[in-house]
């Protein structure tokens, strides 16, 4: 898959915006007008970010600010929505307006990959961005989008002003008149700058910075073979080639709990990092949703283990699995700080790059878990049919059985089977959301690159991701 260039993303943003503008405008009711306002808002924010990027693309401490750039960014900053709705209104992520905003945000993200966290130039191309011509090109792009959007908004506002609408709607479109006028005049100043006539194309062919090589986050060369051995063992037990026992059932439940637990921790850390860095709302929610789904999966494995906690059998099954499970637990534990309970998730990882790297590592363990759950459920059924699953008689309500252990009662076994099904189903559902191979490649690649960009440009960081997800 070829990586997009800055010019391609800008073109896509422009085409998507043109497509949005070509649609019929529905202003028949207050709801329709407010929905349109909400659709335009993400694009306004994206254009504003682009103008701010032109202000100081390299986050330079000695940045020489440009008056026209300042003016355009300032004109774009005020929200077009009433204050109380600014953060609560729907962004309608599927609308063409929002999509245009994402393309524009992704274009800014792409440029940001060429700088380090403190403005250090990571590539030779970074010099083109901080160069006056490069910044002017950025500014002209922002001005073109701003002018078009403001023209559209003023057109809609003029139409709505003549229609019978509520007071709230009229106050919103009044703001469009005011802000739209400011935006158009500042954009006009930029676009009619005499230097702009030369229109050099410095940035169009610029791609994202190559991924920087970092030290591997952990040596997992023992963990993956151990995991593969466990998966083979689970399969062999499921088909009856190797004897299963209650201890191994618990061991596999612990394995599922451990892997989903660590996956939940690193996804939660990534979500916290994304929030702390002020990344796009959609991007933060994406990370947080992943963490929540994994937490649910983790809870089902914990409940499965609890259902198995009192179950005993005569033993005699393979015992080597314990070393493998402990080895995996140990190595995954080293991936993140052992004192993870002592620190909030945002501090758990030094940065989003590390969090994403850990996610990439731990995500390699998760796909096998639903299969393990169903395989172990088959093992449990076989053991139950053979009368090989026991519980202490003192734990039963009618504990007048003379023996210390007795076969597990049917209702308790049904609870166990339900716990297996829940672990399998919930984990599979979580993984389906997490996997999406068609988009995750882009997500990981973009995410890792963006996280190395300077904090000020990070608000763009997950635009490409959410764009990819939306596609």
């Amino acid at each position, binding site marked *: 898959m070829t990586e997009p260039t800055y010019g391609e993303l800008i073109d896509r943003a422009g085409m998507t915006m043109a497509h949005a503008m070509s649609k019929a405008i529905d202003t028949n009711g207050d709801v329709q007008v407010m929905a349109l306002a909400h659709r335009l808002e993400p694009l306004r924010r994206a254009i504003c970010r682009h103008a701010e990027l032109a202000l100081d693309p390299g986050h330079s401490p000695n940045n020489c600010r440009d008056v026209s750039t300042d003016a355009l960014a300032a004109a774009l900053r005020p929200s077009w929505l009433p204050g109380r709705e600014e953060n609560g209104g729907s962004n309608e992520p599927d609308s063409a307006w929002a999509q245009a905003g994402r393309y524009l945000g992704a274009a800014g993200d792409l440029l940001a990959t060429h700088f380090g966290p403190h403005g250090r130039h990571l590539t030779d191309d970074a010099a083109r961005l901080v160069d006056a011509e490069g910044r002017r090109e950025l500014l002209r792009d922002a001005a073109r989008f701003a002018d078009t959007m403001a023209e559209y908004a003023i057109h809609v506002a003029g139409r709505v002003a003549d229609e019978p609408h509520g007071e709230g709607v009229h106050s919103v479109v009044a703001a469009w008149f005011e802000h739209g006028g400011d935006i158009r005049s500042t954009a006009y100043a930029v676009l009619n700058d005499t230097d702009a006539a030369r229109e050099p194309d410095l940035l169009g062919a610029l791609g994202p910075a190559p991924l920087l090589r970092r030290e591997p986050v952990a040596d997992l060369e023992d963990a993956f073979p151990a995991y593969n051995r466990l998966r083979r063992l689970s399969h062999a037990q499921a088909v009856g080639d190797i004897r299963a026992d209650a201890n191994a059932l618990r061991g596999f439940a612990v394995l599922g709990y451990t892997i989903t637990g660590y996956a939940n921790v690193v996804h939660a850390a990534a979500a916290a990092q994304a929030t702390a860095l002020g990344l796009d709302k959609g991007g933060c929610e994406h990370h947080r949703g992943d963490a929540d789904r994994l937490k649910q999966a983790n809870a089902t494995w914990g409940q*499965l283990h609890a259902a198995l906690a009192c179950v005993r059998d005569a033993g005699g099954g393979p015992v080597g699995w314990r070393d493998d499970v402990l080895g995996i637990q140990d190595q995954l534990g080293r991936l993140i700080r052992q004192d993870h309970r002592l620190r909030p998730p945002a501090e758990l990882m030094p940065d989003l790059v590390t969090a994403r790297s850990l996610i990439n590592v731990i995500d390699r363990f998760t796909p096998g878990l639903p299969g393990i759950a169903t395989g172990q459920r088959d093992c449990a059924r076989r053991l139950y049919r053979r009368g090989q699953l026991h519980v202490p008689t003192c734990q039963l309500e009618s504990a007048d059985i003379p023996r210390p252990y007795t076969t597990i009662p049917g209702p308790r076994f049904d609870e166990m089977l339900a716990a297996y099904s829940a672990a399998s189903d919930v984990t599979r559902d979580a993984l389906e959301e997490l996997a999406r191979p068609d988009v995750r490649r882009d997500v990981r690649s973009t995410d890792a690159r963006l996280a190395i960009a300077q904090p000020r440009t990070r608000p763009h960081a997950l635009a490409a991701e959410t764009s990819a997800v939306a596609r």
Partner: protein
Amino acid sequence: MIDISDLTGAAAALEPTAGPAIARAAVDVACTATGLLLGQSHDVPLLGCSAAVVSLDAAYAELRLLDDTDGERPPLIREVPDDAVAVITAVLGLISATADAVRRVIGDAQDGETALGCARAVVQLEMAARFLRDDLP
């Protein structure tokens, strides 16, 4: 539901003449209580507990090899209190007392096999304690 005092009581019962069967029952209690914690809802996964149950299971298996008698019956545990810190602390006390008891068995052991099995059990108990401490604030 088991009470915290049941866990501390189980630890006290290990003094001073406990043999492998009683130690095994104590490990059974510790393992079950820790395992049941995993089934509860917590803010963060109890990853230390998940590692500990494997070690406790291994310690139980080592001790079972030493004594084929039924030994002590484990108390009724189908639930543990919601206070994970209190349960883990109590389990840590129980594990510590169990390890001491098993060490005494090593001192009294008449054969190398028993001593070796007990030593392996102690190692697993120590590992379990280390893992459990990871989950304590």
